[in-house]
């Protein structure tokens, strides 16, 4: 993009980079904000249907599709309240902290092969690290509100998120191990082709660990049945009890952003990202190297594919939310420490042993053997011997 601006449009480097960065930031912001609008409407409709009612029907025509916009206008017009005893600075800052963390994680999330804010070679790690920071805003909100309901909610959320980071990290490591890279683009590209090459179907262990990931992801974005932090039946509204208006809506944009993010991450890690279930672009004869237009069209298709998968993930989360009752705090901790963590560890070990025992996959030719490409510059299997001398030669070549 920046190269295009420099070479074709004739901008100087600094302006080209500025335009590129602003454009990427605006697009990502709109994914979060626009996504939140759509998903809030979808949540109301789904909740309605599950509870045997219609949900919004009147605002903006037949399906109430302008309901979120009306909500937004209401929130804008609402009085911005702050409790008298609150710590003003922290109280005002907390929603932005949550939102920023959610936004930052999107920077490293690829939407298609080239459509990524900033391609990091440790993309998975970055996303997981930044996602864990969202809880900081919640804790600040809970503490600064000077309300015991808020503080209880924040403390519950802290305990929950810190606990669930452990199994979540273990689940994320398995696709990293299979792909031999922490780069999200590489991980998704390694699953190119039909759905049989998805890591979800790579072996039985990855199939199980995907569901562990789903559980942990729902818990880590603080959705029901794990929404102890805002348990309205006993904590009024938990950490956002004292918030109203636009500040309150920032927490919700962050929540919906995170839901979308963990769903997209699941799609990239386990379901091929922008690849499969049917390689439409490949069947249409579009592939890399057919010229810029073909490349661009392939990527647009891929982006639609990934967004579709992530949306399905978010819808499943809503389905879970309106179907299952809320867990108790001890049940939440039991789920994490007694079930998810050991299960994730065992599945990790299993996936590792599977790689050793059946490096070519269960049925030869079905799915691609993982782990053949290690860090690009290192000689490895197929690329020459991996002895210290060979590695040293390669390092000397890269870093003279």
């Amino acid at each position, binding site marked *: 993009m920046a190269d295009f601006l420099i070479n074709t449009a004739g901008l100087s480097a600094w302006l080209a980079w500025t335009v590129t960065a602003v454009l990427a930031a605006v697009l990502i912001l709109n994914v979060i904000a626009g996504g939140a609008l759509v998903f809030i409407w979808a949540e109301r409709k789904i909740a309605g249907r599950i509870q045997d009612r219609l949900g919004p029907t009147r605002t903006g025509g037949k399906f109430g599709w302008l309901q979120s916009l009306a909500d937004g206008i209401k929130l804008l017009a609402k009085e911005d309240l702050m409790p008298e005893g609150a710590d003003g600075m922290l109280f005002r800052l907390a929603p932005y902290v949550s939102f920023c963390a959610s936004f930052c994680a999107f920077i490293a999330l690829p939407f298609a092969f080239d459509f990524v804010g900033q391609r990091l070679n440790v993309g998975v790690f970055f996303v997981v690290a930044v996602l864990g*920071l969202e809880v900081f805003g919640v804790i600040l909100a809970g503490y600064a509100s000077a309300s015991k309901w808020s503080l209880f909610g924040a403390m519950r959320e802290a305990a929950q998120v810190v606990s669930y980071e452990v199994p979540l990290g273990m689940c994320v490591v398995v696709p990293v191990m299979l792909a031999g890279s922490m780069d999200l683009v590489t991980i998704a590209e390694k699953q190119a082709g039909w759905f049989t090459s998805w890591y979800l179907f790579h072996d039985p262990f990855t199939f199980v660990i995907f569901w562990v990931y789903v559980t942990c992801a729902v818990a880590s974005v603080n959705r029901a049945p794990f929404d102890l932090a805002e348990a309205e039946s006993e904590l009024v509204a938990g950490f956002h009890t004292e918030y109203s208006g636009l500040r309150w809506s920032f927490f919700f944009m962050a929540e919906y952003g995170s839901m979308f993010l963990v769903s997209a991450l699941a799609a990239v890690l386990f379901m091929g990202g922008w690849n499969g279930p049917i390689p439409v672009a490949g069947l249409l004869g579009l592939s890399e190297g057919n010229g810029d237009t073909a490349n661009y069209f392939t990527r647009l298709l891929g982006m639609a594919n990934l967004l579709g998968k992530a949306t399905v993930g978010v819808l499943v989360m809503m389905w879970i939310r309106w179907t299952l009752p809320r867990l108790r705090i001890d049940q939440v901790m039991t789920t994490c420490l007694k079930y998810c963590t050991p299960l994730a560890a065992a599945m990790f070990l299993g996936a590792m042993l599977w790689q050793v025992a059946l490096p070519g996959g269960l049925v030869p030719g079905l799915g691609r053997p993982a782990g053949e490409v290690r860090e690009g510059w290192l000689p490895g299997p197929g690329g020459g011997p991996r002895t*210290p001398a060979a590695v*040293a030669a390669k390092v000397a070549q890269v870093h003279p």
Partner: protein
Amino acid sequence: MMAFVSGPTAVIEPLLGLGLALPVAGVNWHTFFFLLFAAVACGFAVAVVAADNVVRMALYLVLSLGATAGLFFLAGAEFVGAMQLMIYVGGTLVLLVFGVMLTAQAPFVSIKGSAGDRVLAGVVGAVLLAVLLQAALSVPAWRRPASGHVGQPAATPIGMALVGVRVDEPDPAAPAKNRRSGYLLPFEIVSVHLLVVLVGAAYLARAKRRKTPRAIEVAASVEPAASVAEHAAIGRDRPRGASVLAGGRS
């Protein structure tokens, strides 16, 4: 001051080929962000020391450490940057939770040191800063900015050595016992040592509880509100019927 503004002060830029001309100076974004992150890191580090509320301190610490992570990303050290976010920024979060839980006796408690403490802290800090500055300025390679990547020392050999592969081995063909060893074993020993220290600290810091049933009853009846949050985190610690926190169904 305006080190990040490079080139001639007013460069005419064609904007997207629309014939629109803007008199603007070219900005070196790398320098700009370096100065920005460095200023944020240093400024909030000072704010951590100056603040007297433990949660505000934690917020400033998070901002300062986050800006340091930004510096790492700016230098292209993405793994170190993500590590910084995961370990230091995430760790501060846990520190904050336990700091609030273990120290807060009242809402918004402030920790104010005496004037003597501040002077002492200033002296210690100044001495440490002097030592660090002296050490940093005495490394000849750091005095001028390295140009380009050619000939620049990379972190790769250290990283490889950490996992046991010495790429700087002068004689790779030598028998194994004559070759240089990696840093894997020392690294593991240090981490196990840290784990032992952590377990010991947790043992020393845990609350001492008497085991007689009567003492437990008394404690339950006069329990201060602040420790309820602790029970919420621990979960089953408290009889379910008595707990307002035990959670309900929506």
